[in-house]
């Protein structure tokens, strides 16, 4: 029973997230960008744009220019999250690739760093008046959710050890559509439920910044309007073509 409930819940969450994100990305991709609006100075070539985008996505270049604290906490959170997600691949892959084995100990450190960074981000949101002013309840709750996911994960590592082998069997079972019993550990159940919630709200929340950044015209357009004519697909009927 427990196994089926969680299996169905996780399938549903995955489905909603994939479909929701797909729809959103489709919208972003098909909505026209009528005018050239890169924030200058901007690269003049497509290659340059790729580099600019990489610098934003990998090292948060603009955020670094803006505010060193937000950058530090934000970057540590995202980098740690990436490591933690990679570490979790071991529950879904058999045999576990060499690289994933290698990062296991770093994954744990990353988990701790992630929780610390989230605490710092939330502290800023609560304590800095201007950031408190712009925060809606969902902005706080998002941090709480991520914190709870991180904390329940760390709890399983350090205190309430769960049956890792059984947990892995359950995960692999999900992947191969051959369900295996899920250990009834409270920490694990909480962890999985919260992850499902996160996946569910992904396409309806500010988590859309993840696909959004790639479609931001101020960042993904090249500065070449004098060299290449930008012809918008809609409106501007009077434009001679």
């Amino acid at each position, binding site marked *: 029973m427990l196994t089926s409930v969680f299996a169905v819940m996780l399938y549903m969450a995955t489905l909603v997230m994939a479909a929701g994100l797909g729809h959103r990305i489709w919208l972003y991709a098909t909505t026209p960008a*009528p005018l050239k609006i890169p924030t*200058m*100075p901007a690269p003049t070539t497509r290659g340059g744009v790729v580099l600019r985008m990489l610098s934003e996505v990998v090292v948060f270049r603009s*955020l670094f220019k803006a505010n060193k604290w937000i950058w530090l906490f*934000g970057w540590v959170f995202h980098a740690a999250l990436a490591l933690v997600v990679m570490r979790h691949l071991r529950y879904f892959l058999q045999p576990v690739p060499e690289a994933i084995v290698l990062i296991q100990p770093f994954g744990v450190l990353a988990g701790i760093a992630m929780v610390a960074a989230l605490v710092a981000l939330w502290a800023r949101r609560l304590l800095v008046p201007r950031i408190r002013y*712009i925060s809606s309840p*969902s*902005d706080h709750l998002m941090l709480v959710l991520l914190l709870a996911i991180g904390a329940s994960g760390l709890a399983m590592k350090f205190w309430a050890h769960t049956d890792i082998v059984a947990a892995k069997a359950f995960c692999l079972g999900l992947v191969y559509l051959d369900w295996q019993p899920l250990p009834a550990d409270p920490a694990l159940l909480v962890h999985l439920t919260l992850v499902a919630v996160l996946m569910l709200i992904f396409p309806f*929340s500010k988590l859309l910044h993840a696909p959004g*950044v790639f479609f931001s015209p101020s960042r993904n357009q090249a500065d070449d309007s004098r060299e290449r004519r930008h012809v918008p697909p809609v409106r501007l009927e009077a434009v001679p073509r």
Partner: protein
Amino acid sequence: MAAEQSKFDPVADGRGDPLEMPRLACGAMAASKPYVATPAHQQALGFPGELVEDWQDKAIARLGELLEESRSLRVYLDACVRCGACTDKCHYFLGTGDPNNMPVARQNLLRKIYRRYFTLSGKLFPWLVGAEDLTKDVLEEWYSYFHQCSQCRRCSVFCPYGVDTAEISMAARDIMDSIGLGQKYSNEIIGKVFNIGNNLGLQPKALKATLAGLEEDIEEETGVPVRLPLDEKGATILLVTPSADFFASPHMEGLIGYAKVLHESGVSWTLSTQASEAANFGMFVGSQDAMQKIALRIRKAAQDLGVKRIVFGECGHAWRVAYSFLDTLAGPFDFLDRNYPVPQHICEFTHDLIQQGKLRFDKSKNDEFRLTFHDSCNVARASRMGREPGGQFEIPRAVLRAVCNHFFDMAPDTIRESTLCCGGGGGLLTDELMDLRLKGAMPRMRALREVAEEHGVTHMAAICAICKAQFSKVLPQYGFEMDAIVSVHQMVSNALVLTGSRQEAELDGKAEVALQEA
């Protein structure tokens, strides 16, 4: 706290760290609103004369249309994570402390409506995600705070997703126009461009007389008959310049500079009555239609006159529209000479001649000026000059250094891509917004004060008609001279030694000969 704000004293508050964080003063600027456009001004642009009956529905429908038409709007409304990186980047927030002038808070005024009517979370749990119904109060807030954004894009530089509040403000103004709540200043001006050809409503006859007067002045000063041709068919270059260049100071001194440079280049050129305005306020009100209609005048003028090149004078947002949008809105310009950039900025033109060694300068003529340079937002963050990214910073500075001996930059985090708005851009250069303009200029005035004290800077050069007009107004309030703002080409004009001029003769030690000739 609102009371504290009203004690704003430019002389005292004009000193200190330009980027100093203000204390939050909730609602301090809620009452700042520009005059509402009259029915006549509205209807001339095809907008409803006054607030329509079912304005809520109409506004929401218009927002829906814009979401379909503009990727930037859609992505920006979704992507913001309220990280706060932009909160202290707006000069209007720095100057007023009103939290609604923090870029993200300004966006949220539109975002809360977007969420309420266009997102699942906002339809189901409005209180959770900060979604709100579109009420009269919200509309009042929109009218107030979307007219406290100069669309300078400073926030966009620092946002991790490039969220550009200017795009949001333009959309909000477009929506307000579409329900009959327009801004008088901008819409009246757009009407004048449609009817007369320029923002000031300057008639062709007056324009002709002005140009003739300038020709006389230049000849008197230099002894060289420099012409300022109007509507001359067959000229090579069409010069399109903001109409303020025809009558205001220091704009006009800049126009004299262009004329001298163009004369010295030997390339024939002309102004046009039809396109006697570079400015394009269609951008400020977010109306692509108006923007296109204004842009097409320039194409038409170029075709009618049979020119081969288009050069733009010193104007910030005009250069954005010219550089980034003109080809899209009014191109293709295949009838022009593609060996030259289409369009070209007058600073690029002058800089090229300097590089080729074709201009001779007597820098000492500018020795009374200890200069700094104000990067205008739209040039800095929305366009380029030259071949390399960042040319928009280097080229005007290179021109200034070529014509004067004393040049000092302001603090690095207040110039170039981080430049601070003059406080009057984006359609806010109107008297009833003087309080906002004064406070919005504070960060720039502080940066200027710093170099004035450290390096004895006396003058600030700019390449934007709005910046020049705004600074002429606010500089005296901050304890500077009104004429501390100068045009870049005014400095060029001062130092340029025209071939065959009295100055040339003097310089070559032939003063006596020159005197006899005179």
